């Protein structure tokens, strides 16, 4: 089996670059083909990159609190562009303020994300989920 391609990026007007660099290094190390769009990535940039590289998953980060606004509609746009079955993961400090994680998870699952992660997500575990869930 070929190494699955994943698209990484920090959505919206968000400049937090440290976690993004860590994610790139980590997932490359785990054998994924990583396409890292860096910080301040718009929804269409994510989608274009995913189409161009035939990616199996998009990993969206949001740290700065505007995640709720920035992520709305991403799933619909993916479907519009023919990315019917692409995996959508999202993680970071997704909402403004300290909030019980269940609430955050529910909110983002409703928006169409397959998995939602807190800042202290176990990355090994995330890699395992990805391996299991990407379409061959």
């Amino acid at each position, binding site marked *: 089996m070929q190494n699955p391609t994943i698209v990484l990026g920090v959505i919206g*007007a968000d400049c937090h670059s440290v976690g993004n660099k860590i994610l790139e290094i980590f997932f490359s190390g785990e054998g994924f083909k990583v396409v890292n769009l860096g910080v301040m990535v718009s929804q269409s940039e994510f989608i274009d990159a995913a189409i161009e590289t035939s990616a199996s998953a998009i990993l969206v980060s949001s740290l700065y609190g505007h995640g709720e*606004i920035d992520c709305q509609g991403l799933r619909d746009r993916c479907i519009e562009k023919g990315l019917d079955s692409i995996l959508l993961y999202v993680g970071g400090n997704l909402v403004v303020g300290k909030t019980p994680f269940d609430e955050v998870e529910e909110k983002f699952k409703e928006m169409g994300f397959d998995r939602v992660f807190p800042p*202290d997500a176990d990355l090994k575990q995330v890699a395992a989920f990805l391996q299991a869930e990407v379409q061959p």
Partner: protein
Amino acid sequence: MLKNKKIEMTEFNSIRKEVLTAWPTGKDVRLEDAFRYQRAIPAAKNFAVAMKNALDRGQILLQPRAGVALVDEHIKLLKHLETEGEADLLPTTIDAYTRQNRYEEAARGIEKSIAAGASLLNGFPAVNHGVPGCRTVVEAVSKPIQVRHGTPDARLLAEITLAAGFTSFEGGGISYNIPYAKKVPLEQSIRDWQYADRLVGLYEENGIRINREPFGPLTGTLVPPFISHTIGIIEGLLALEQGVRSITLGYGQAGNILQDIAAITSLRELAHDYFRAAGHSDYELTIVFHQWMGGFPEDEAKAFSVIGWGSVVAAFAKPEKIIVKTPHEAMGIPTRAANAQGLKATRQIISMLTDQRLFDALSIRQEVDVIKHEVKNLMDKVLELGRGDVAAGTVAAFQAGVLDVPFAPSIYNAGKVMPVRDNEGFLRIFQKGNLPLDNEILAWHRSKLLDRARAEGREISFQMVTDDIYAISKGKLIGRPK
């Protein structure tokens, strides 16, 4: 080509026209009105004055970060930090859309926040609220207030907030681009910040001193001091050239106390060197220290310790200002309660340590010797009383008050000794009771206490002891008179 040269007024004015039309609220800004408004602000609310005073008095001022979407909520937040949190200086942290000049998205954020009944923005969208909205904020508080953001092109933000009475403006052409933006050319951001600095210079020339603060910590993540120092000094030079006169250079805690103290010391000395070498002499330089700017522990107890450790370093390094984190740091924008907790925890440390000097091996050795000397005095007497037997000697010593525990409840304790702190917070003896301390040591204790008495302008007295007992729970180490 980009030059470190004062922007000429004709050029400034032509840029200015454009700047003010970038969003509708820009048209409210009229400089003459702004100057009039600023001149009416009392000195107690001027940020530059506060920083200068801190420098003259050797104080460390506390400032939190805080900003929410709506004017009323933002005021409530700031008032809480002012009263409950006892902040010395107030912030207005700007939201991330405004920082990118995305005023339409900010407008949507305001609407959604109203609808949700909670702030969905990570800061205060000052441009959208315009001069009137910002003035409502400035007028509602009683402490000097600063704009804190992360905006590569902050020209309109500066126009609006300075016209609204803010007296300090954070940022710089390097420090608010490189860590905050992805695609803004550095040349562009430096130019745009020369504009902001020139605007501050105009206020200065009209008799209004506005404080400027380059953002020292940069990415907040493992930045060695010499890198951020160099950038800070450059931003200082750029600002001075445009007529800025009150400048606060920043540094983010690196974690090793030695390096951090050396960093604060060197930043101050270097900046003066470079500023003077560039021909500047008429300026006020102050230093701000940022508590740990990298990733925080999620556990609040642990976060408190990170906050505490930053405060300890500040207490020894003596910057004029410390920017305070909160126990929610790792989780999200703090509640106002958490924000006040960060201030209280910081205050406790800064106050507890305020009288302590940087220690070194030599003075510790000296104190070690003193203690050894005192113990020998007592022990010799105990053994003498017990004729060589320590147990018997102890009983006799307590009877004689040679051993005497302050505040002990036992009737077998003489209770005659009264300790008190000296001027640096060392515990010394005020009333020796029957302790067999020799004259050399007693005279030394006495002289230490006289230092304190002099510093406090009062006699050595039992009141000092009472004051010392309450001190730590009141956030001090030494119980000074009010």
